[in-house]
């Protein structure tokens, strides 16, 4: 299935990922010939930038840590400035398979925002208790808002089409959970078409979700707060933004 990737940009937010980022970039460039990769170094203290440049990526170095949301907005702004139509967010830790990028980009023909969702089973991690309830409730509410079935709303593997790129270059939230949950709400309320595509996730090289009940409850509360305010904020429409510019 030949898909033109010359107008697509992979954006990789990276915080102290010198161990994995080089391998991920080389694999993506091998799997997706002709694609450009922008690594947004989110205030790393290690050699992330040098490793990424050596591997063939463009590197945007943030002077201090902004979080995934800040790093992504920087990537969207770069895409707008350089005329890229699509932005694909890929994690620098290697949990997303670059071979599945064309599948996401292909969906952009009829959608504005495509979420790569983990299949149950393969590479999936068991989530239980309050954290799982939070994810289920979150998926239910967001599915309704997005007018499509979403099961993995916190996935960081997603592709944005031109309308989503224009919207996110201006309005990508930097708050906790903003890059996943709130950005979905913003997109859905701006009447963008959101779709979910099943992808297989690999084992994360580092970090497993915590099963500490206190932390899980805290997560639940933060999800509730993030969701509430995402809906309370004024709507942003893409057309309105285009009129202004």
């Amino acid at each position, binding site marked *: 299935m030949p898909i033109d990737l010359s107008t697509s940009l992979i954006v990789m937010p990276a915080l102290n990922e010198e161990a994995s980022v080089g391998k991920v970039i080389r694999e993506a460039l091998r799997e997706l010939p002709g694609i450009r990769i922008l690594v947004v170094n989110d205030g790393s203290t290690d050699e992330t930038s040098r490793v990424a440049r050596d591997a063939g990526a463009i*590197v945007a*170095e943030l002077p201090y840590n*902004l979080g995934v949301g800040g790093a992504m907005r*920087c990537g969207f702004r*770069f895409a707008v400035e350089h005329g890229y139509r699509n932005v694909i967010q890929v994690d620098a830790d290697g949990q997303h398979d670059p071979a599945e990028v064309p599948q996401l980009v292909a969906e952009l023909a009829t959608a504005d925002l495509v979420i790569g969702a983990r299949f149950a089973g393969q590479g999936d991690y068991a989530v239980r208790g309050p954290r799982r309830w939070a994810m289920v409730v979150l998926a239910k509410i967001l599915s309704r808002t997005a007018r499509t079935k979403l099961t993995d709303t916190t996935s960081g593997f997603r592709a944005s089409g031109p309308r989503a790129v224009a919207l996110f270059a201006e309005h990508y939230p*930097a708050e906790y959970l903003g890059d996943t949950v709130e950005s979905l709400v913003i997109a859905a309320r701006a009447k963008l078409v959101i779709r979910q595509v099943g992808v297989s996730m690999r084992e994360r090289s580092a970090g497993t979700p915590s099963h500490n009940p206190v932390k899980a409850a805290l997560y639940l509360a933060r999800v509730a707060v993030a969701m509430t305010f995402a809906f309370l904020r004024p709507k942003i429409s893409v057309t309105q933004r285009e009129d202004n510019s």
Partner: protein
Amino acid sequence: MSTLQYVLGIVAAALTLILVIELLRRRRLRERHAIWWIIAGLGALVISIFPQALGWVASRFGFDVPINLAFFASLVLLFLVALQHSAELTKAEEHSRALAEQVALLDIRIRELEAQQTRGSAASVRKVKNTEKGTRQRK
């Protein structure tokens, strides 16, 4: 209330006002941030000069103990100032976030320009060498 207390009250209120005005005068404080402190200082000055004014206003609002009105008003004022500071901090954070992104993007452009320049000068060096070679060959 003794005369000493009376004078102390006026001096404290006046000093507060003078401090705020002095900071404003030296541009260490912007007007928009100073407005609440000026209101507080003026209020304190009026009440220290005419203590019965506090009692009069307090009875109007139904406070049994006048000083409770002073505490209430101070709390409300401090709350509003703190809230304003949080809002200003949010704005400043958003500005610094935008600047950080801009710096990162400008850094990319500088690197690209530098790379172009090095390529350009490398090319011109090659050109010069080629011409030299050409002249030598012609000789």
